[in-house]
């Protein structure tokens, strides 16, 4: 039983380390910001989850000291990784004019990502070709 528990914990540690490595390798390898965003925010979350499950199983099965501390970290990371990816992609859309021209117009009067401090679209800080007029007309 102890040997099986050790095998399970070791496998989970190695799986977690492998997925952290995959995320960082994708961060180096992929060519674009939007494509680079995929690798860390998904696979490193999976790797951290596997490492935390390994830690919980180790403390519960092999040391008879079960704790739920790790659930706090995993829930926090699972909640915050999509928010991070969303903020980074919005900042990338804001900083890239060509990408703003390619994207369809969002519903309502607001852009995809705006710089104006009050959320109103008429007080844009920098003059640029307005995106509300379609370029094909």
């Amino acid at each position: 039983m102890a040997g099986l528990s050790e095998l399970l914990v070791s496998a989970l540690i190695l799986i977690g380390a492998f997925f952290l490595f995959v995320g960082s390798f994708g961060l180096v390898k992929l060519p674009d910001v939007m494509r680079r965003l995929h690798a860390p925010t998904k696979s490193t979350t999976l790797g951290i989850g596997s490492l935390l499950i390994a830690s919980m199983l180790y403390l519960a099965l092999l040391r008879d000291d079960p704790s739920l501390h790790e659930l706090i970290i995993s829930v926090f990371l699972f909640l915050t990784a999509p928010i991070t990816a969303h903020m980074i992609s919005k900042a990338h859309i804001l900083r890239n004019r060509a990408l703003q021209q390619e994207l369809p117009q969002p519903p309502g009067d607001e852009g995809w990502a705006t710089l104006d401090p009050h959320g109103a679209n008429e007080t844009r800080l920098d003059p640029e070709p307005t995106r509300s007029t379609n370029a094909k007309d």
Partner: protein
Amino acid sequence: MIATACLIAVGVISVSALMNLFRLATGPDVLDRILSLDTLTINAIGLVVVIGIWFGTSLYFEIALLFASVGFLSTVAFCKYLLRGNVIE
């Protein structure tokens, strides 16, 4: 067996942290640097968790929790500064 797995995992996570430092140094855009800092924080959490398993203590989880919250807040503050030109309006 667990000690061997922890040794391999520490090596692999260290290599991935070096990859993040490479992207942090040569990232063409500022968003690449923000993303690599976030990934570096996640790798640090993984390293702390693996070393906690290796040494057999449950003492290091508060450190991992602090790393998680500070990394998330710093990433959101950087992105908020890029989006709005200000962190707290």
